[in-house]
C-alpha cells in the first residue's frame, strides 16, 4: 500500500485536501452557490447539471442551512449552518467507489486501521422531485458521506446517470481530528499566530441564527416571500423563449431555479418557526417540487441541458 499522507491538523486543511484531491481527479472546482440552500445538492452545479446528456464533473464546498437544527452553538454535533462537500460526476465513472476511497485517504483516513462500509441508503429529495440509489458510507460505525447514483431529478430520468458524493464536513473533520465538540475544532492551523477554533468563527452566529430561526423571523413576511418566489419562478418560465431584444432563444432556467431555491429555504424557515402544520407541510413540499420540476423541464430545453446535443 502506498504511503499514508500526514494527518491534517485543521478543518480548513481537510477542505483544502478534498479540493486538491478532486481537482487532481479532473473535477472543476466550483465555488459555493451565492444563495441560502439546505444542502449541496441544491447548487445548480448539481441539480441542473445532473439533467440532460452533457458530461460534467464538479466539486465544491456548499454552506448549507437547516434552520430546525439550530442549538445556539451548544450541541456538540448540531448546527443550523454547516458545510457540505459535494462532488458530481456525469456519467458516473466505473471506479467512483475507488475514487471516493482515495479522497478519504487524502484526508488522513488509513484503510489499514479503519472499517469503511457501504450501507444501503436510498436518497430521496421530495422538494427536488429527485431520487437515487446508493449508500451511506460508514467509517467505524459513523456516517461520513452519502453516495448516490441519481436516477431522477425534477421528475426527469437521469441519462446518463450522475454519481454524487456528499460529505458532512464538520462531522467528518471532527472524526479525523479527534475532536468531541464542534466548537473546539481547529479552524485554521493550530500553530498559526492567530489560531482560530470553529467556535471563534461560528459560535456567535449559531446563537444569533438560532434565535432568529426559532423566534424572530417574521413569518408574515416569509409567507409573502414564499408566494412571491413561487409566482416569480412561474412567471420567468412562462415568457416566450425568444428574447425580442437579442432575437435569441433564451430560456431563463437558472433565474427561475433561484426562485425555487428561495422558496425552499423560506419553507425551511417557516418550518423552524413552527407555523406549518403536518398537513400543510406536504402541500408546501409539493409546491416547491412543482417549481423544481418546471425548472428541470425548462433546463433540458437549454443548451447546457443537452437540448439538440
Amino acid at each position, binding site marked *: 500500500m502506498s504511503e499514508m499522507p500526514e494527518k491534517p491538523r485543521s478543518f480548513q486543511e481537510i477542505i483544502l485536501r478534498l479540493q486538491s484531491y478532486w481537482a487532481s481527479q479532473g473535477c472543476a472546482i466550483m465555488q459555493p452557490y451565492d444563495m441560502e440552500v439546505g444542502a449541496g445538492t441544491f447548487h445548480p452545479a448539481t441539480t441542473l447539471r445532473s439533467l440532460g446528456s452533457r458530461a460534467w464533473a464538479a466539486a465544491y464546498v456548499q454552506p448549507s442551512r437547516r434552520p430546525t437544527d439550530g442549538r445556539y452553538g451548544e450541541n456538540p454535533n448540531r448546527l443550523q449552518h454547516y458545510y457540505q462537500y459535494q462532488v458530481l460526476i456525469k456519467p*458516473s465513472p466505473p471506479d467512483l467507489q475507488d475514487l471516493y476511497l482515495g479522497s478519504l485517504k487524502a484526508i488522513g483516513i488509513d484503510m489499514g486501521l479503519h472499517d469503511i462500509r457501504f450501507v444501503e441508503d436510498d436518497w430521496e429529495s421530495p422538494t427536488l422531485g429527485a431520487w437515487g440509489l446508493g449508500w451511506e458510507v460508514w467509517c*467505524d460505525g459513523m456516517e461520513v458521506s452519502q453516495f448516490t447514483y441519481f436516477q431522477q431529478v425534477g421528475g426527469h430520468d437521469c441519462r*446518463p446517470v450522475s454519481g454524487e458524493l456528499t460529505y458532512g464536513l464538520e462531522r467528518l473533520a471532527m*472524526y479525523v481530528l479527534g475532536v468531541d465538540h464542534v466548537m473546539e475544532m481547529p479552524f485554521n492551523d493550530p500553530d498559526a499566530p492567530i489560531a482560530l477554533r470553529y467556535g471563534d468563527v461560528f459560535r456567535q452566529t449559531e446563537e444569533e441564527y438560532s434565535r432568529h430561526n426559532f423566534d424572530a423571523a417574521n413569518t408574515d413576511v416569509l409567507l409573502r416571500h414564499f408566494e412571491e418566489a413561487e409566482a416569480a419562478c412561474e412567471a420567468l418560465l412562462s415568457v416566450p423563449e425568444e428574447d425580442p431584444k437579442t432575437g435569441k432563444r433564451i430560456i431563463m432556467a437558472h433565474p427561475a431555479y433561484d426562485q425555487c431555491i428561495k422558496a425552499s429555504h423560506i419553507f425551511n424557515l417557516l418550518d423552524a418557526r413552527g407555523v406549518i402544520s403536518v398537513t400543510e407541510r406536504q402541500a408546501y413540499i409539493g409546491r416547491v417540487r412543482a417549481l423544481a420540476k418546471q425548472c428541470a423541464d425548462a433546463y433540458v430545453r437549454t443548451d447546457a441541458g443537452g437540448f439538440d446535443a
Partner: protein
Amino acid sequence: MPDLLIELFSEEIPARMQRRASEDLRDRVTGGLREAGLTFGESHAYATPRRLALAVEGVDAQSPTVVEERKGPRADAPEKAIEGFLRGAGVAREDLELRDEKKGQVYFAKITKPGRSADVIVAEVLESVVRNFPWPKSMRWGAGSLRWVRPLQSILCILTEGDAARVVALDIDGIAAGDTTEGHRFMAPGRFAVGSFSEYEAGLLERKVVLNPKERAEAIETAAESLAQSAGLEVVPDAGLLAEVSGLVEWPVPLMGEIEEAFLDLPPEVLQSSMREHQKFFSLRNPEAGQIERFVTVANVETADDGVTILAGNQKVLAARLSDAKFFWENDLRVARDGMGAWLEKLENVTFERTLGTQAARVARMETLAREIAPVVGADPELAGEAARVAKADLSSEMVNEFPELQGVMGRYYAVEAGLPEDVAVACEEHYSPLGPSDEVPTRLVSVAVALADKLDTLIGFWAIDQKPTGSKDPFALRRAALGVIRLVLENEKRLGLRNFINSGFVAHGVPGPDPSDQEDFTGMAQRFSLLTFIHDRLKVYLRDQGLSHDVIDACLALEGDDDLALVVARARALQAVLATDDGENLVQGFKRANNILTQAEEKDGVEYSYGADIKFAEAAEERTLFEALDRGEAEISKAVLAEDFEAAMGAMAALRGPIDAFFEAVQINSDNDILRRNRLNMLSRIRQICRQAADLSRLEG
C-alpha cells in the same frame, strides 16, 4: 459432465436483499437450463455484500437432439399453401413424406432440432436472467441502460470439466464474462483467476472473503458468544440483526466494546434499540441483573492494531447516540412523573388516520369499549378504562418519536413512573399484542380487555370508512388485527358475543344501528355484518392451520351464537370429531338425502313441511322406530346443546344414522297416498330441524 460456476460481482448489495437474490439467481438459471433441455445435479447459491454466486454440478454438455413431426397440407392443396408449410417448417420439398389419411394424401415434415452446447445455453440463460432480474429496486449507472441493484462490475462464468475450465462466451452491455474475481476490498485487493468452484471458494477464503452467508453468521454468533462469556455476559439473541450484519461483511471481525457508565441506567430496550437501529450492534446482557452492559460490533476488516481504532470510533458514535437517548429519557421522565397529562393533550394534535380523526378521539373510543369489554372478560372496568386512557400516551414522548418500535415498552415504564397500578402499566405494553401469528397473547385480564378494544376499534374504524383489505393489499394490517381478536378470545378461553361490541364501536364511529323497535330497519347492518364475516373468514384461516376444515366451521357458523368464537370452535371441534366416525359420515349422507328430497318437494309443492309428523300415519316398523329415535334425539341434543356439551350433542345426532338409513330402506317417501307422503315429508323436516340444533350439515362439502 461440466460443472457451472457463475459470479455476478457488483458494488455493495443491500444486506436485506442478498438472500432472496441468491435464491432468485439459482432458481432462474437452473429453470432456464432445464427449459433448454439440460439436466444437472445439485446447485448452490451464495451471496456476500459484493457478489452473488451460483455453482451447478454435472450439467449436460449438450442438450438432446429433438425430432418433431409436423402435419402439413393435403397433397392436392394449392402450391402456395405447400410452399408456406415448407418455409414454416424449414425443410425441403423432397424431405416431405406423403401419408394416406382419411381425407386423402397429406404431407408430413420431420423437423430435427439439433442439440446445443451447454456453453451456448448458459450464455443465453444468464444474459436473460441478468437483464430480467427481480430486484426489489434496481438502477442504471454511467451512460448505460443495464439495470442492476448497484453497478455490476464483472461477470465470472466458467464451465469446468476435469482439470480444464473454459469461460462461457458472453457479453452483457460491455461486461464480458471471464474467469476472474476479486477478494476483500481492503485486505486483498486485485483480481485472481479460478478454474472451478472449489478453487473459487478457497481462493476467496485465502483473500479474506467467506462466501457462504451461513458460515459468516455462525462465525459472528460463535465469536460474539465467546466475547460475551469472557465478560460474564450473554448475547441478546437477535436473528434479524445477525442476518443483516452477515450481509454487511465479507470477513466478519466481531469486537466487544463498552458502554459508558452514565448510560447504563437507561432501560435495556432503549440501549438495545439505539445500538441495533443506528449502529447494528449486538447487545450483551448481564444474566443476573438483566441490564445491557456491553456491545459487540462486527467489523469487516482485520487491522494492525487489532481493531482498537475501530472500536474507539464505534464507542464514540454510540456515546453521541446514547446522550441523545438519555436526553429524551430524562425529559420524558419529567412528563411521566407529572401524570403524562401533557402527552395526552398532545394526542389531540396527532392524526391517527386522516378520516378517522385524532389519536385522542381514538383513545376516547377505546376507553369506552374497554370498559364495556372488561366485565365480560373478568377484568376490573376501572382499571381497563384507565389503561386504555393512557395506553397511547407514549406516542407523544420524545423516546418513541425517536424509536417508534419502542411504543408500548416505553408506555409501561412511564406508567410506572406516573404511579399507575401494575395492571395498567403492563397493559400499556401488552395491548399491542399479539402482533402476529407467533407473537404471545397477553393473559392479564386488563391487558386482554384493552387489547380487544384496541383491535376492534381499528377494525371498526376502517370498516366505517370503507377501507377494507383487498387482495394482497392490507395497508392497515387489518387481517392481523382480526387474528389478534380471535387469538385473544380463544387462547384465553373467553366467552363473549362480539356483536354487541361491534355495534357500540360502530355507533362511536358515527355509524348508527337499526332502531330496535322497527323490524324493517336495517340501518348500518351491512357494515356490521361485513366485519363479522371478515372475522369469521380469518377464523377459518386460523383454524385451518389447526386442521379444522372450513365447511365444518361453516356448518357451525350457520347457527345462533356465531359471534361467540369460543362457542363456534367448541362446536366445530366436536363436529369434526364425529364426522371422522362411521356413523357421522353416514349420517351426513342420510341427512343430505332427506334434505334434498324435502327441498325438492317443498319447491314443487310451494309449501313448507314443518307442521310436524304424526306417528299415527306411520306404516312400517322402521318408520315408527325413527319417530321414537327423533323424539329421543331431539331431547338429548337440545339438552346437550344447552349444556354446551357438543360431544354429546354430536353423538346423539350421529345415533340417528341407523334409524334414518333403515327408514329410507323401508319406506318410499313419495307415496301415492298423499297423507302418507305429507307425513313423511314432515318427518324429513324434523330430521333437518333436529340436526340443525347441533350443526347445519347442509353446509358440509362432499
